[in-house]
């Protein structure tokens, strides 16, 4: 039996002491580490404690039988190879055990060659599975790397497209401004009031266009690269609460901030974190408001914002007692552009939030119960404090 790469552990479960002893000797001699159990119950406990690679179990045992043991093991560890030992008249049980994904069965009286062959097959299968798994892991790593490269090249392509689109828009605005100034000149020269009015309107329109364009550009730049700065973690949360408190009281929602009392700072893009908290709190307010529309019952609606430290993380928690979410909604929340707000929402909010938190190497988590409310938490890693620098 080839067993040169590593020492496999075999758990042997049999109520007959004689069989246990014989098989122990055979398998130990073949280079395996052998664990013994005299009944199914002990066998399962040993399995949980020692996590053997292979289990060989008698089918007929007092207490937990072999098939039940097989089922229990397969349930928690589907990759474990289980070989059944059957008596002469147990063909039905043997077939049944195969249905429950036993690796093989050997019949009593046990022939040592048969046993070795069966165990060898199990070992081969395991090493193939392990190799497959490591290939798959490698493959996944390669794919992830390629994905990142594609992401990068796509964002470069996006920048290229944006620049091209921008230059087109700017050119058109420049054209409009030149056109309007020409019309104005003509109007002044010929004292033509229609020209003056039209030219002036056209110029104002183009001024609006360029103003909007510059705002769009600013937003784009904000989402493309975080500008990291040391800030007090309470700062963005406080700003959000200040901004939204009047909207909350308008909707009769009680909004409270529980700031972090300890003085410390985190390295983040303050504007971006502000955007995320703003999104979460706005969503919470909306969820509270929607609840009233749905059920019509009156509860004191509230949104609480907590800033906390949990070991190496700063955690912002936004809790509401609003309408909550269905499981199927919460599953796709961060992946797709999904909105539950009808025409009011764009579906961009949480996507952008997720992107920002990813950029900060943070996490975004949530818990929601339909009809009871939601808690969203964002966790930002605390950087080691740099000393000797301002």
């Amino acid at each position: 039996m080839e067993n040169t790469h590593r020492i496999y552990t075999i758990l042997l479960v049999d109520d007959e002491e004689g069989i246990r002893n014989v098989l122990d000797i055979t398998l130990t001699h073949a280079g395996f580490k052998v664990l013994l159990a005299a009944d199914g119950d002990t066998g399962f406990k040993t399995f949980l404690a020692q996590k053997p690679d292979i289990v060989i179990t008698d089918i007929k045992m007092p207490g937990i039988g072999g098939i039940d043991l097989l089922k229990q093991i397969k349930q928690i560890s589907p990759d474990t190879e289980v070989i059944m030992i059957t008596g002469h008249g147990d063909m039905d049980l043997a077939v049944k055990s195969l249905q429950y994904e036993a690796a093989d069965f050997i019949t009593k009286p046990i022939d040592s060659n048969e046993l070795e062959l069966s165990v060898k097959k199990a070992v081969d299968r395991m090493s193939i599975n392990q190799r497959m798994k490591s290939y798959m892991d490698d493959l996944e790593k390669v794919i992830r790397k390629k994905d990142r490269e594609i992401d990068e090249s796509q964002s470069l392509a996006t920048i290229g497209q944006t620049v091209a689109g921008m230059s087109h828009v700017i050119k058109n605005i420049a054209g409009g401004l030149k056109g309007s100034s020409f019309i104005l000149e003509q109007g002044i020269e010929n004292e033509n009031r229609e020209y003056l009015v039209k030219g002036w309107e056209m110029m104002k329109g183009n001024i609006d266009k360029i103003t909007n364009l510059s705002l769009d550009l600013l937003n784009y730049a904000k989402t493309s690269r975080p500008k990291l700065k040391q800030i007090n973690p309470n700062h963005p949360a406080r700003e959000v609460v200040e901004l939204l408190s009047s909207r909350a009281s308008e909707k009769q929602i009680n909004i409270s901030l529980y700031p972090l009392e300890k003085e410390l700072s985190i390295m983040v893009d303050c504007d971006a974190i502000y955007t995320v908290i703003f999104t979460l709190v706005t969503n919470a307010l909306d969820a509270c408001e929607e609840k009233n529309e749905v059920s019509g019952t009156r509860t004191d609606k509230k949104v609480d914002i907590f800033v906390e430290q949990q070991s190496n993380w700063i955690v912002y928690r936004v809790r509401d007692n609003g309408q909550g979410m269905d499981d199927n909604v919460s599953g796709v929340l961060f992946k797709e552009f999904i909105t539950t707000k009808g025409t009011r929402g764009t579906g961009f909010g949480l996507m952008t939030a997720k992107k920002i938190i990813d950029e900060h190497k943070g996490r975004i988590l949530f818990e929601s119960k339909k009809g009871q409310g939601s808690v969203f938490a964002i966790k930002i890693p605390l950087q080691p404090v740099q000393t000797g620098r301002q």
Partner: protein
Amino acid sequence: MADTNKTDKGARTVLVIEDEMDMRFYLMAVVRSLGLDPILTRNGVQGLEVLSTLCPDLIILDVMMPEKGGALVYQELKTNPLYRKIPLIVFSGVDFHSFAHYVKMVNLGQKTKIDFPKYYVEKSADPDYLKEVIRKCIPLNRIDDP
């Protein structure tokens, strides 16, 4: 026949095909400042309708228009023998390379190739430049036509 509509002494006409109202007004102002007579249309369908009743001395065509797109009108102007000789200025928000690429694509596998535009003015160009190009087109037209 389109040619018979032309008179040597009357004010020369410029057909403007442009969907944007601001730009139409601007082109009108430019054309008038040269002492020419603008006929304003807001899309390809209207432009071609006008062409079926009279022959202008010049066409100014925006190639980026909805409905009957300017590029399709361009194709028609270049392939219809009645319109081919009318001087044409393509007035466009896209740069010349993009439009040239479009013409190349249209010509792929066609027996009769359509020409690249002789006069191409981007919308962002100076009004003085546009006026210069218009001036170039009008005398050419007079020389070509007996």
